């Protein structure tokens, strides 16, 4: 690794902060659903927190992301405030989208979260359009399209990669390969050993990287973002990771071999990175514990604030369908 491509201590701590936020937020979210305090369509991103945490420290606030239903990690890492995210997750009027989008459709342009889609594969064609807009306005923004390994089997992926390469769009395609497309294992539904090899078909760089190691992912993401920003076109990054809590809440994960899950959990990226920061003397145990305690407090407060917030007025059914209010 080039020394310039190694994140400095402050950057590593920033990555840790984001990972911690995602981890603690996820613990609260799952508990909330499990205990019945909230009913929401929640897809846990736990296990995948390194990816957006690392990528986001390389992005500006103005850079765009398009993400998917398993995307609270991407949103939090990009900067969606907890006190806007949580009311939306539980359908309240003061959520990012007035409670009209929900967990699968968070939008927050102020932090660059332009689209969250519940349709597998649909983040990529839209990311291309945002990137085209950046070419037209020469604003030097970069757009990140997040998606899973399952999405690399849908047509939209291939259409989007071809167009992005052809038009040299400033977009980075980030496949979070968590080894499962819903309940089907990667190998049972994907003809290629690695998603990154599909980039060859579109003459764009494709690289597989350990998506659970910030120090491995950082230089790869930095190169891809730099390439995009400097007009050299798109990159496909396949960040290898693992999904700790199944496809959806209540998923019994009977389709996952127990030893496979056990091995993955033993390499919990949040715990590993935490230990490394201490070992590398980037932070002390006390400093990290303080970050965790602050985050814990912040998340708890956001949730209580959200649950005490009002539901949207029924007149919202007529609003935001069009620019005008629907009357018929």
């Amino acid at each position, binding site marked *: 690794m080039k020394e310039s491509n190694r994140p400095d201590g402050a950057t590593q701590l920033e990555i840790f902060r984001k990972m911690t936020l995602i981890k603690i937020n996820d613990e609260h979210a799952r508990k909330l659903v499990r205990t019945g305090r909230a009913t929401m369509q929640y897809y846990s991103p736990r296990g995948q927190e390194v990816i957006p945490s690392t990528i986001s420290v390389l992005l500006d606030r103005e850079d*765009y992301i*398009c993400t998917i239903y398993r995307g609270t990690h991407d949103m939090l890492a990009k900067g969606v405030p907890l006190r806007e995210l949580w009311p939306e997750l539980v359908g309240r009027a003061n*959520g*990012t*989208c*007035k*409670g*009209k*989008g*929900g967990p699968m*459709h968070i*939008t*927050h*342009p102020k932090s660059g979260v*332009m*689209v969250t*889609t*519940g*349709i597998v594969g*649909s983040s*990529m*064609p*839209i*990311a*291309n*359009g*945002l*990137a*085209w*807009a*950046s*070419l*037209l*306005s020469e604003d030097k923004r970069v*757009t990140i399209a997040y998606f899973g390994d399952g999405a690399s089997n849908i*047509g*939209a992926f291939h*259409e*989007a990669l*071809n*167009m992005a390469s*052809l*038009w040299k769009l400033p977009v980075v395609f980030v496949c979070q390969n968590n080894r499962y497309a819903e309940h089907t294992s990667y190998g049972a539904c994907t003809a290629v050993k690695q998603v990154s090899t599909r980039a060859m078909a579109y003459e764009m760089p494709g690289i597989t990287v350990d998506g659970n190691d910030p120090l491995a992912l950082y230089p790869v993401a930095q190169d891809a973002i730099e390439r995009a920003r400097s007009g050299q076109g798109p990159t496909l990054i396949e960040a290898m990771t693992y999904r700790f809590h199944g496809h959806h809440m209540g998923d019994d994960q009977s389709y996952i071999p127990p030893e496979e899950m056990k091995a993955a959990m033993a390499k919990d990226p949040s715990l590993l990175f935490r230990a490394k920061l201490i070992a590398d003397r980037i932070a002390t145990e006390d400093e990290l514990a303080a970050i965790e305690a602050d985050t814990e407090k912040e998340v708890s407060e956001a949730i209580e604030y959200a649950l005490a917030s009002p539901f949207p007025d029924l007149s919202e059914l007529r*609003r*935001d*369908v*069009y*620019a005008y209010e*629907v009357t*018929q």
Partner: protein
Amino acid sequence: MSAATAAKSVNSDTYSMLEALRIALDTAMEQDRRVIVLGEDVADPEGGGVLGVTRGLSTKFGSLRVRTTPISEQAIIGAAIGASLGGYLPVAEIMLMNFTTVAMDMIVNHAAKLRFMSGGQTHVPITIRMLTGAGFGAGGQHTDYLEAWFAHTAGLKVVAPATPADAEGLMLSCIHDPDPCLFIENLQIYRTPGPRLAKGQVIPIGKAAISRPGTDVTVVAHSRMVKEAHTAAEKLANEGVSVEIIDLRTISPWDREAVLNSVAKTKRAVIVHEAVRNFGIGAEIAAVIGEELFGSLKGPVRRVGAPFCPVPYSKPLETAFVPGPEKIEAAVRSLID
């Protein structure tokens, strides 16, 4: 026939829908740098569109604003949506209406819903152009009228002009509309000359036109069927029946006021569309007429549409498939007799 000869074939007072659309796009692009065009074959090296509607635009406005795309409808609509979120006003050409089927996710799940699902933080000001209309022997997958699908989707606007001037005016309105608009063009009337749009004239979305005033029966139509309705109305006039033709121009949101005002006057209504009759937009309009004017109607609301089958290939079948003046006349007579 090339676009150039089409343009020559009309005199200066009239023009074709094809020419009207090109003028609208040129005007919009000249007035606002945010207007951009994408679609298969739309740039000049590829001929400026399969029928020449976008001819000249890429040369004039540059290849970054007028982009020929791969045959990738999801990528086309996705790029249009994304560019609109990034502040632009894209006009995406999907060539034929049937090809929207491979981009339905982008149109229905995304373009239509992003304003609502974002609580109004984002919106999708795109225009999607598409050509359709049976009559040129294309068989089952190139000439369907699928407007009812899109009109049934909250968040989309659907327009279908019948005249060149309305095409120009509505195209300008769609481009500047803050919401996604589907723009349906008909091949059979693509080169039919019509009066030019008057300078400064605006054709707003959602406003129908009284295409022919009358007193006895209201015929509601759009796109090519307006022409067929006129042929029927001429014949019926000779028989002493006065037909009022309401050209919807916009299908969603449709002009209830114009339709109800006309039917309140004539007390008889026939709705005509080229799409199959079953579950077509005629059903919605008939239902509203029934709800609002039930007591004053002098007969049931009639619907004229294509039979419930795919567009057929063989010429006699295709001709019989498309509703023509005879079917419209028969429906009108059934209300008079």
